[in-house]
């Protein structure tokens, strides 16, 4: 049981790290670092010099730095897959009678295999924008499933965690709106990213700060929706911290962190839109978005939990 808890948390943390590394591959432009899959230039260990390349691959595509960046992403992906597999095994061993732990784990593991396959499609399609978005989307689903399983285990061990807390019962609509808004915001964000790339392809010598001017209404939609999400997060914070009785410390911390992270996202986003497209900031903007999604799911599950206990 102890071991399962450790692995549940470990696989969640590693999946978050993998999202970070995946984002890094993207901003470093290393997505095609290995032009084949699962091997890299026909080898299990990427080549270190041109004469190790197989004949059928154009040597112009070889860039050792990019090949190793992409390869580390794949290795780490395999490690995460393995960790999730172990978590699933332990979960089925101890909790196969509990659907709320069993099914999220089975889904997370299946989606992880799917993600690996999607990675191969990405290489085959030379980074098709829609496939990149799907690759991120399923990573976010996986991490939320793992978080959910971890949280349920936490409640198994601490059944009274939300026993005394009494949150407003009419927050379903707020959470629903938040979920839709966050999903749309992620899609808009990836559209901005993809749009920038398209414009950059057609205007290869234009500096990045001018690229954004050419981008059109997406960036405004992203900002406006960001503002709406801020308001929603404050409402949810107000409901779950201020208007509630004895909110759990998990709820208070999660709700407060969400508001702070969303404010941070606005700052980072506006830097990207109005000052400069800085790769490191792009990376953190995406990564923090994945945190916010995870925290909102924790918040929602905690709220649900209190109602179950209450009823």
């Amino acid at each position, binding site marked *: 049981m102890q071991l399962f808890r450790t692995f549940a948390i470990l696989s969640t943390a590693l999946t978050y790290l993998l999202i*970070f590394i995946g984002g*890094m591959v993207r*901003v*470093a*432009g*290393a997505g*095609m670092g290995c*032009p084949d899959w699962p091997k890299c230039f026909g080898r299990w260990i990427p080549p270190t010099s041109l004469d190790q390349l197989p004949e059928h691959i*154009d*040597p*112009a*595509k070889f*860039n*050792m*730095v*990019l090949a190793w*960046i992409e390869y580390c992403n794949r290795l780490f992906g395999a490690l995460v897959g393995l960790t999730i597999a172990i978590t699933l095994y332990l979960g089925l061993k101890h909790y196969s009678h509990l659907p709320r732990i069993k099914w999220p784990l089975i889904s997370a593991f299946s989606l992880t295999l799917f993600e690996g396959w999607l990675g191969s499609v990405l290489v085959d399609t*030379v980074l098709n924008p829609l496939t990149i978005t799907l690759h991120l989307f399923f990573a976010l689903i996986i991490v939320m499933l793992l978080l959910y399983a971890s949280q349920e285990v936490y409640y198994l061990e601490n059944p009274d965690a939300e026993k005394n807390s009494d949150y407003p019962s009419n927050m379903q609509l707020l959470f629903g709106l938040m979920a839709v808004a966050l999903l749309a915001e992620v899609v808009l964000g990836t559209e901005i990213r993809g749009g920038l790339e398209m414009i950059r*392809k*057609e*205007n*290869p*010598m234009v500096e990045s700060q001018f690229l954004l001017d050419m981008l059109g209404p997406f960036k405004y939609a992203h900002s406006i929706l960001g503002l709406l999400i801020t308001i929603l997060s404050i409402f949810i914070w107000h409901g779950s911290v201020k208007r509630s009785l004895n909110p759990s410390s998990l709820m208070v911390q999660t709700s407060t962190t969400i508001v702070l992270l969303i404010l941070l996202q606005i700052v980072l986003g506006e830097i990207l839109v109005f000052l400069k497209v800085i*790769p*490191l900031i792009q*990376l*953190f903007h995406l990564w923090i978005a994945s945190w916010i999604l995870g925290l909102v799911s924790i918040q929602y599950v905690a709220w649900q939990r209190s109602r179950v206990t209450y009823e």
Partner: protein
Amino acid sequence: MSRVTYYILIMIIILGLGANWVIEKANRSYDIPLLRPVPEFSFLNQRGESFSNENLQKKITILDFMFTSCTGPCPLMTLNMSSLYKDFDDVQEVQFVSITVDPSIDTKDKLREYAELIGVDDGRWQFLWSDMSAIKDLKKNGFMLYADDLPQGHAIKFVLIDHKGNIRKYFDGTDEASQKVLRKDISKLVRELRL
């Protein structure tokens, strides 16, 4: 601040520094080798004007060998070259050169028609012809490309040539991922030229 928050913050800073290092390293990883100078040649373009190795100076050139009646990989090569021609239209330092390997059919007029057909309306893309032996010699000895069985056996490479007339790199003219690298390399050479 609680101890956990403290640890998380430290971890994020380390991740940020690490990512920054990786991104920097990736940005600096695009080195373009210096292979050899393009030897002297003097051919004619689709308008009957002379085009020689001197015309490679102060320009970044993307060059290929093709013939207009080719049905094999050439349409894809032409499509890729057209796409570069279109996207780099506001970059005056970049020019495109296609040399026919079938000069008996691809006369000056034929090349001009071909250029018009694919939408070439300025001097940024030249279509060159000469006599077969000169073409063969330039292809084989100048560009080190296969030239034994022309026109069918022509190479599918795009050659990237810098502003001093040096061959820098070869790219598969039919491969999408190679084209992406080529675009990056062209931009890099143009930036170097503008410095």
